């Protein structure tokens, strides 16, 4: 689905590795029955190859692509560095549900509690960058972990909420560096379309997923 941040992870990896692929978008508010045969949970993203093998869960799809396809490796070879990327991934795990709750409540209720929680989570990520003294979460070059967490920060840019990283300067610099990446910029979400989608999606409108087409 064009606006799903989890599916965005997989699209970024496909792009970064130059993997030829086709996309079938699923209406998440009105799922086709056949889709549950691909993923019993009915969620995107799902990869399917010509051998009929199906892989789901965004992080698993990304790792699968990195292992199965040649070219630039996004995950490090060193076992410890790889483990570090997975530990950062765990550190990030509270951000997606928080950000979604925040977007649901904006303009409707007081969300200062959520804002504070978001600040707390961003500070944890800031600490990683500060300790590592590198631009990206995996080192001096962009790697898997950066692509895995990027889609939610892309939302901040698209919704003009960059102020949320004002107190986390390294995170802010990271965002700027990410925007320069070819895969990121070629797949950058259209802010107008995203806002249009979000409004409809939060109202459970069946047409939301096709907004802008």
């Amino acid at each position, binding site marked *: 689905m064009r606006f799903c941040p989890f599916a965005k992870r997989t699209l970024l990896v496909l792009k970064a590795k130059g993997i030829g692929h086709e996309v079938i978008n699923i209406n998440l508010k009105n799922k086709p029955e056949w889709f549950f045969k691909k993923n019993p949970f009915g969620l995107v993203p799902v990869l399917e190859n010509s051998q009929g093998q199906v892989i*789901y869960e965004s992080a698993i799809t990304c*790792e*699968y692509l990195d292992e199965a396809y040649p070219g630039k490796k996004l995950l490090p070879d060193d076992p410890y560095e790889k483990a570090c990327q997975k530990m950062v991934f765990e550190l990030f795990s509270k951000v997606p549900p928080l950000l979604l709750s925040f977007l649901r409540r904006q303009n409707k209720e007081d969300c200062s509690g959520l804002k504070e929680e978001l600040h707390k989570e961003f500070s944890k990520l800031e600490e990683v960058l500060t300790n590592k003294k590198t631009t990206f979460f995996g080192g001096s070059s962009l790697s898997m972990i950066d692509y895995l967490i990027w889609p939610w920060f892309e939302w901040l840019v698209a919704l003009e909420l960059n102020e949320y990283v004002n107190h986390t300067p390294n995170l802010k610099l990271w965002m700027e560096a990410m925007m320069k990446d070819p895969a990121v910029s070629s797949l950058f979400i259209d802010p107008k379309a995203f806002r249009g989608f979000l409004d409809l999606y939060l109202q459970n409108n069946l047409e939301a997923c096709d907004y802008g087409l």
Partner: protein
Amino acid sequence: MTDDAARTLGRGSAPPGPVPEGLIRLYSMRFCPYAHRTRLVLQAKGIRHEVININLRNKPEWYFTKHPFGKIPVLENSKCQLIYESVIACEYLDDAYPGRKLYPCDSYERARQKMLLDLFYKVPHLTKECLIASRCGRECADLKLALRQEFCNLEEILGYQNTVFFGGDCISMIDYLFWPWFERLDVYGIADCVNHTPALRLWIAAMKQDPTVCALLIDKNIFLGFLNLYFQNNPDAFDYGLSC
């Protein structure tokens, strides 16, 4: 070689020194199912290691320099590198150490094992809630029903695959990642939750024949002794069964 029988370190204890070259250290607790995963992998791959058991009710202050929230398991190597989250630790060991690979080599089969792990995610919480409920004299019929449903999902996988183990005909990483909770079904008093899942029962029986699983099997009476003290909030619970 292993120090699984070591008394726990608690508040006020001196921090351990650096990890000697050629060894990897595991911060653990003898009855913790998550740490059990890591101990299974260390055993299965024959990795030289030392174990420091942590008193989880009375954590040493220095332990928070190993894990920000003082959780176990944590691996520490001789380069002072720390790895935590049980699944991350297990994968690290499989990657970093030679010999028998517990994860398959094929990328799709690796992905399948990781998808299976996702299918398992409710089991730890449900088994713990059943244990707490029964220990506190509360009803747990709903919890057991929910657990049986999870076991049915796993049963379906084994049925569909028509293999003994979750990764195929041989034991592999995913089996070790699931095992600790199944070993505890009996002492938690919920062994009847696999009454309707024959393939899962066969898997349990096959697992009990595995040398690695056997080497680390916890004596039922010692486990019960631990549980009794644990639910009485006795800080000595974690050392139950150790000779003085």
